């Protein structure tokens, strides 16, 4: 972060302790100053941290050498215009009493704090709706606490009725009990999901309708909560790579890369040039894949099945290339800390170029059906529009934020892997409606292809893995041939790569937006904590605001257009 910003903050928060970790500034503040600090960070024009990225907590129960309060909460903030990344951290003296909620500052805090409450049992005072979010309502205990046993399985006998929350939401929107019952305006409750073709996975959307118009909406997630974070605490760093495949499974490689990048930046590993270019090529290729699936599904919801074939066939064809490279179709697990699992195969350039040509054709065929199509226009334009400011307040990032006219993209604003060397544009929308969200995705695919073609020209030769015995596995020849290599192989597999003690946050522009990882390491081969900042969690958190006042059929399209992927949403 720039020195001026740090100066301003140091004068504004004399009680805070400042540290710099990677490109993040961390301010440690006393518990009673937490809310005040956050409020000033949000509201001071020269600080302007308009984006709340994530809220999480750390349980220091088993952390070596830790004294004092067991829990701490961490708020991760960003000023996207000036590329300032900040974490505000505060100890929590008593989890039952908790800390003051930040929901009044950023609505994004609503779901984020619910998750902390659910996973760590930390209370947030003045939070409007502090319920469990990922785990079911009959669940006992808080899974991410260190004294919670990972095998403490708990059966859920029936789903939550959600009657309370929807009534409350109706009241907030000015519909009182008598209107609900009045015969002329009788409100109908309609439940979509969690098993419904339009929910694209397992999400539950409960709406209160007047005719077809949505008066109030509440959503329940967590149906695909698979305990990623708890499981990751029991794996070595490289063993987590396959778990990251299954976060956003439409673009598994992006998660692989984001994850290893986060670990590498902390360890100060500079991967080889070739590996960097490989990661760029593959990131952009997978970004295209992700957008293809999203748009295909979105257009099916609109009734345009032909588009599904046009777009999905290209995805299917891409699997040929992907499986030739990685050995798997969907779950690639292709990165390792320190480089790539292996190099491109011989002749990949031709395959890639053919793929790109086919994809271009598929997209153009689809666009020919969509661009001038009046039905598409009328169903998507000015529908579920979300202004830029609101989108930021809800923590939107990625294509959905850009569709609302905010040109924030980490590849431009905080470039990594030589992104500054490529010539590409960031498409932005104007209205933030469904149409813009779709079109931004279409345009982004063309931009990604541009990047891939440039990177293919620039990619240098050389190794794809760093030469460091503490990180890279020795070759099989050596393992079978000499005892040192055998011992080092054994240690790297069993104990894992030793990651220095500390806490850090690192982010990556994934297909859906900013994918961040917040790690706490105790110096061993397994992370003490590994928290994902999933882009679509925050989009879903703003869903009710997008659809209230719209028709129920539009809500379906809207859900498709924000591209919710269960694995990433619920982890």
């Amino acid at each position: 972060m720039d020195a001026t910003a740090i100066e301003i903050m140091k004068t504004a928060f004399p009680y805070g302790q400042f540290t710099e970790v990677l490109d993040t500034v961390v301010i440690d503040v006393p518990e009673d100053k937490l809310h005040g600090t956050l409020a000033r960070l949000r509201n001071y024009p020269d600080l302007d941290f308009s984006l709340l990225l994530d809220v999480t907590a750390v349980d220091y129960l088993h952390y070596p050498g830790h004294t004092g309060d067991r829990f701490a909460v961490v708020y991760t903030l960003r000023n996207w215009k000036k590329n300032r990344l900040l974490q505000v951290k505060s100890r929590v003296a008593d989890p039952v009493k908790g800390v003051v909620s930040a929901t009044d500052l950023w609505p994004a805090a609503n779901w984020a704090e619910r998750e902390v409450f659910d996973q760590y049992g930390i209370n947030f005072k003045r939070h409007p709706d502090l319920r469990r979010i990922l785990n079911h309502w009959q669940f006992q205990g808080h899974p991410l606490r260190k004294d919670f046993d990972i095998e403490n399985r708990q059966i859920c006998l029936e789903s939550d009725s959600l009657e309370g929350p929807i009534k409350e939401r109706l009241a907030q929107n000015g519909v009182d009990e008598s209107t609900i019952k009045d015969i002329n305006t009788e409100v109908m409750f309609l439940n979509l999901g969690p098993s419904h073709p339009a929910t694209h996975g397992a999400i539950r959307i409960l709406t209160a309708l007047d005719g077809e118009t949505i008066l109030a909406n509440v959503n329940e997630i967590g149906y695909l909560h698979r305990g990623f974070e708890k499981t990751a605490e029991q794996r070595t760093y490289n063993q987590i790579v396959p778990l990251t495949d299954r976060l956003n499974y439409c673009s598994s490689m992006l998660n692989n890369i984001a994850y290893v990048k986060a670990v590498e930046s902390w360890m100060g590993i500079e991967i080889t040039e070739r590996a960097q270019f490989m990661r760029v090529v593959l990131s952009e290729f997978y970004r295209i894949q992700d957008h293809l699936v999203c748009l295909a599904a979105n257009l099916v919801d609109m009734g345009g099945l032909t588009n599904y074939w046009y777009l999905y066939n290209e995805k299917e064809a891409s699997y040929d290339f992907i499986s030739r490279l990685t050995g798997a179709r969907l779950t690639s697990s292709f990165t390792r800390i320190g480089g790539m699992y292996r190099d491109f195969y011989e002749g990949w350039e031709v395959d890639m170029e053919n793929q790109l040509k086919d994809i271009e054709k598929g997209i153009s065929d689809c666009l020919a059906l969509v661009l001038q199509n009046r039905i598409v226009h009328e169903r998507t334009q000015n529908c579920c529009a979300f202004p830029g400011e609101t989108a930021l307040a809800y923590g939107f990032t990625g294509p959905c934020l850009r569709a609302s006219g905010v040109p924030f993209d980490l590849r431009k604003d905080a470039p990594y892997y030589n992104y500054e060397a490529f010539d590409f544009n960031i498409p932005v929308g104007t209205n933030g409606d469904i149409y813009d969200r779709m079109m931004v995705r279409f345009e982004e695919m063309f931009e990604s292809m541009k990047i891939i073609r440039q990177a293919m020209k620039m990619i240098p030769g050389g190794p794809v893995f760093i030469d460091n015995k503490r990180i890279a596995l020795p070759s099989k020849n050596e393992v079978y041939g000499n005892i040192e290599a055998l011992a080092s192989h054994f240690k790297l597999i069993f104990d894992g790569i030793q990651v220095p003690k500390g806490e850090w946050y690192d982010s990556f522009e994934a297909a859906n937006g900013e994918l961040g990882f917040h790690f706490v390491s105790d110096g061993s081969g397994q992370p003490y904590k590994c928290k994902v900042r999933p882009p679509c969690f925050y989009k879903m958190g703003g869903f009710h605001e997008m659809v209230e006042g719209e028709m129920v059929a539009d809500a379906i399209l809207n859900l498709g257009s924000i591209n919710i992927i269960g694995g990433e949403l619920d982890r």
Partner: protein
Amino acid sequence: MALGLEAKLGDNVLTTKLDAVVNWGRQYSLWPFIFGTACCAIEFMSAAASQHDISRWGAEVVRFSPRQADLLLVCGTISYKQAPILKRIYEQMAEPKWVVAMGACASSGGIYDNYCTVQGIDKIIPVDAYISGCPPRPEAVLDALMKIQDQIKGESLLVDRHKDFKGMLD
């Protein structure tokens, strides 16, 4: 899987002939309900798309109402939060019905051996075919479909399947 006839006819040549005709019909017009929750559902999408084309087995009429379907394809991880819903969907399907567990998660919990994941859907509902893989290739889905077709061939109107299955939520 009663049609109501067997009470009158019992086990005789008419019912066995009827079995053959009915089973033949059922085999080649399975209507699947896709209970897709996670990554495996994306591979089902591939199985349904042009290249693998599930319609070659007569099972392309994907239904999203359990009342219209007779093949429940569970594609993806089932969490404890999801379990009561899966059971409800299964119960809403009319007999005769078959269940396929697609992928490691649905079959056994897969890589998720933890507090929130059901260790195989057969803890909740009876399963007829399991598909290994994480995720299975689309061809494996087609293979499971053929297994179900084979199984149907040998079934009889007189025998009720899974009458005394007791799951975790029963």
